């Protein structure tokens, strides 16, 4: 009996394991192999071994540098704003009339397929007819070429990222606050703590793990950023809004078909994401959430 159960248990995870071996592990090894080769689909030549050359080229590539710059900009500006704003809304709407309504409605920006979000923002940011420039004209601000100038297009992507992801941070923290036992807060009140003290000594410490999850998930998402950039700025003007994923797409598919070089970029991206994921798994002991 015991043995039969064990066999069934293994048979049950087998489809998942096989599927991922074939669709993630094998392709990954193939990609590492490709990253040591010169392989451009436009040249109609078989892959040619060039050792580490692709990796050396990374350091000299202007595109890599500007996409890292842009990524850092998102991490240093967009992410802190999202966290502050999301936290603020989560605390602010506690006990307000219409709490549930707001919670549901704020789900929309997060859930809308990013391509559709791209369509709407492209309309809003339109130089000549866009509502954003119209609102700004009330303050005597002249029409801003949102998607056409290298500074404003960066700001535009930051605004879109804030729009898309603040709701996620809000929802996670809001749900987290709901799970804080009410008697803890009551006890604090009895001891004479004011709203701010309750927040900083009871609520924030309990939310700390959630902040940690949020930060890592958002870092990974920023590295994956693609759809909305494709739909609005298409990485431009020039290299201004190339996210890392967008740059890899451009090198290996849309412009260059340089699969070898694209693979080496992807390997580096994968390593970065694996490090972040490992930190998340280890520090949060994620398996404990599954009672493993």
């Amino acid at each position: 009996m015991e043995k039969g159960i064990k066999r069934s248990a293994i048979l049950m995870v087998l489809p998942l394991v096989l599927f991922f071996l074939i669709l993630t592990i094998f392709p990954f090894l193939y990609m590492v192999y490709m990253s040591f080769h010169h392989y451009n689909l436009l040249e109609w030549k078989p892959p040619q071994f060039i050792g580490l050359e692709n990796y050396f080229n990374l350091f000299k590539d202007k595109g890599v540098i500007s996409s890292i710059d842009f990524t850092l900009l998102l991490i240093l500006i967009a992410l802190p704003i999202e966290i502050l704003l999301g936290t603020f809304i989560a605390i602010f709407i506690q006990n307000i009339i219409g709490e549930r309504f707001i919670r549901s409605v704020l789900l929309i920006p997060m859930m809308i397929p990013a391509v559709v979000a791209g369509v709407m923002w492209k309309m809003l940011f339109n130089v000549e007819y866009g509502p954003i420039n119209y609102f700004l004209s009330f303050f005597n601000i002249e029409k801003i070429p949102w998607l056409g100038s290298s500074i404003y297009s960066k700001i535009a992507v930051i605004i879109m990222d804030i729009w898309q992801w603040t709701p996620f941070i809000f929802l996670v923290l809001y749900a987290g606050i709901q799970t804080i036992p009410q008697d803890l807060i009551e006890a604090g009140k009895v001891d004479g703590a004011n709203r701010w003290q309750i927040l900083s000594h009871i609520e924030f410490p309990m939310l700390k793990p959630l902040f940690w999850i949020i930060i890592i998930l958002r870092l990974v998402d920023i590295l994956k950023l693609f759809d909305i950039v494709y739909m609005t700025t298409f990485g431009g003007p020039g290299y201004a809004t190339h996210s890392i994923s967008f740059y890899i797409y451009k090198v290996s598919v849309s412009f260059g078909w340089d699969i070898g070089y694209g693979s080496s970029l992807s390997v580096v991206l994968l390593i970065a994401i694996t490090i972040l994921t490992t930190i998340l798994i280890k520090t949060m002991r994620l398996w404990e959430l599954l009672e493993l």
Partner: protein
Amino acid sequence: MGIIRIIGGDFMNKKLFISILKWILLLFILFFFLFPVYWLVITAFKPSQEWFSWPPIFIPSYLTIENFTGQSRGFEGSLSSSIENIVPYLRNSLVIGLTTSIICIIISSLAAYSIARFKTGGRRLASWIVSIRMLPPIATVLPVYLIFKNLKILDTWLAVIFVHLVLTIPFSTWVLISFFNGIPKELDEAAYIDGASVWKTFIYLILPLSAPGIAAMATLSFILSWGEFLMALILTSSAKSQTLPIFLGRYITGFRIAWGPLAAAGIVTMVPVIVFSFIMQRYLLRGLTFGAVKY
């Protein structure tokens, strides 16, 4: 003075007063988050002469469904993107989404049951699933593109379904594990004692008990597949297999864009996602945070 005294009078009124103040601030926040959606919706129902105008038109003079039916004339050089053109993309999205969702549920519920009950693979397997969940789509799809090219299955439903499964299976496995953990083990053990096999127990006992969770994960897999862009973009090249997001992506890069029909197509893409995610909020959040949030 009198009014303030009345509003701020007893405790209930004070609460109402604070709520009103908070709502005024909140309206600004909601405006920022909801105005873009409003703009998409009204543009989809605007007559063509009102797509471009200065000042922009916030309330259309009349509402029309021409943008959906494809009767709007657009203007010279614009691409017309009516529902008629959308049909093949809609079909592809539905087929790919539904198939992904069904296969995803089969693979992930089996694995989740095994992991939840027998700790198969332990921490290592669980961590592996998380890593796959975090994979950047561009890195998944590049080598897969070459492999599928050799297998000659580029630009087919199958190609897109495969990569969408990479996206949805880790997500749904993770949530289902925590879902199965919530079902008392004693139930399974009672079934084993009565002589049922693991498979029978799973199919006749556990599956019916976890129907809400399974339904939620099927829906979320469908939504994820429905909205996915990058991988489908690389693996497809014609209306034979391109999904709705690719349709939107193709028309937006044109020089002169017919905003009305494009917004209409955007609504068709968006509505199922919004509806389902309202219904599935709680599972959604649980999945996105690896179960750290339960509510």
